[in-house]
């Protein structure tokens, strides 16, 4: 069998504050193959954001291993090496632009930190700006452009160093419904063109079914994997699919899992 691109091997994260100990993620395991688009679905507080933050070296793991291309990447108390981080692009819930830089400088930020210089990288920045229609706003500051544009800038910033894996933390959750649908479709297009591996965090069931090939459902208290659902829906996905029978069945199935989580929380 092909070696997994990303592997979580019994990963646990415990946050300790002065007053309490919170198990954010408990004994989580999953394997993702190269080029897959998967979603992690769950209510707020289920540790889904914590999960991809551990993968991106933003926070430490407490127990367990995370492997990328078969190599263990989490080392407690140590910064993740650049060679690993270069494989990863992180897209935040908010655009998370640095207001003191122009849009172009923001997009090119990972290149600066990774020390990637030269005309080919400069061209890449311009191409990406062009791709999402930000070319003429490249010299503007973030406070001068709209939320949808900012989030596009956030997406291409995560892609600028050509990572193999994109980690998306409810990336379009802050946008209005229409802009979000549009962004989702654009994202699918990018994925189909580039073949990147994508982990997509969301609490929106419809979004998860529409985008991904597999959905990992997480529950709260402690944050844990509840169910894995493989979606056997044709590609390319289209917005019109949401009214089709099997789409609705998958949605209802996931809804029932999420419902059970909510019930168990009340108990």
């Amino acid at each position, binding site marked *: 069998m092909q070696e997994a691109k990303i592997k979580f091997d019994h990963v646990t994260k415990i946050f300790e504050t002065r007053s309490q100990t919170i198990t954010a993620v408990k004994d989580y395991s999953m394997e993702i193959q190269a080029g897959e688009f998967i979603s992690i679905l769950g209510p707020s507080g289920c540790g889904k954001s914590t999960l991809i933050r551990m993968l991106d070296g933003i926070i430490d793991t407490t127990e367990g291993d995370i492997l990328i291309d078969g190599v263990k990447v989490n080392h407690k108390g140590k910064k993740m090496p650049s060679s690993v*981080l270069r494989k990863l692009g992180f897209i935040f819930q908010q655009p998370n632009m*640095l207001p003191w830089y122009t849009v172009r400088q923001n997009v090119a930020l990972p290149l600066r930190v990774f020390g990637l210089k030269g005309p080919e990288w400069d061209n890449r920045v311009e191409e990406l700006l062009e791709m999402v229609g930000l070319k003429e706003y490249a010299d*503007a500051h973030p406070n001068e452009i709209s939320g949808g544009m900012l989030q596009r800038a956030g997406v291409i910033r995560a892609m600028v160093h050509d990572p193999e894996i994109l980690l998306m933390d409810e990336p379009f959750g802050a946008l209005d419904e229409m802009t979000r649908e549009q962004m989702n479709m654009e994202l699918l297009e990018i994925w189909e063109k580039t073949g990147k591996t994508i982990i997509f965090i969301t609490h929106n069931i419809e979004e998860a079914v529409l985008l991904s090939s597999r959905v990992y459902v997480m529950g709260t208290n402690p944050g844990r994997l509840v169910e894995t659902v493989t979606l056997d829906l044709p590609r390319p996905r289209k917005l019109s699919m949401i009214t089709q029978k099997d789409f609705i069945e998958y949605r209802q199935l996931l809804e029932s899992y999420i419902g059970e989580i909510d019930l168990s929380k009340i108990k």
Partner: protein
Amino acid sequence: MAQSTPVRRTPKKERDPKRIIAPLVVLAVLYIGLEIFLRVFNVAAYVMPTPTHIIQATISSFHIILPDFLFTLKIICVGFCIAIPAGILLAALFSQFDILVKAMQPVVIWLVITPMITLIPLMTLWLGTDPNLRVIIVIIQATPIICLNTLNGFTHVEREKLELARSVGASKLQTFVSIIFMNALPQVFTGIKLGCIFSTIGAVSADFVSRGQGLGDRIIKFTKYSNFEESYGCIILIALIGITLYTVVEMIEKRIVLWKK
């Protein structure tokens, strides 16, 4: 890169004539109103001389005032220029260690509140009576307020911005320069502007206590010999020093902090 986009460029505000004319009108109204009021009610000069008399007397005595003006200007500028980097560097140092922030913040606040003028008699004992030492008063008066504001900026950074730095593996220095410092710049400038005010207060109060030189000393002398017009003239000159410094800082801020509205 020279082509500018339609969204950028909004320096119109600065050139808006209303912003310059409006304060001038207020000043003129104040001047004329005061002049009329003081003449109609025949207010004694030792209470409040008329603006015209103040200006006349100050100009005719300017050769007496000038050396003190230059002295105070020097004390304020030198002290202020040392206090800015001192305050920022101290804040940068404290911010590197959580424990130092917690330990030093109350101390800095305590220093901000203590009027440094109270130290002057003691400092004369330690350091002698050289009037140039008044620079030290300005420095210890202005540094804490600059440090406090800067520190506040350094310690309040959105978590997501720091996560961004981590997600690309930025070094401590890169994170500090590109994120923490830039993020704090508006607050750094607030600190520096307050520093202008504190520097002026420090220098004049040092004159009051140590005497012999400076605009503060000159005010006391003029008042003692009933030259009230000149006393007011000196007060206006001190205010002018403060306002000029403040305006210069504000102009620099507008050039640098482009992302605030």
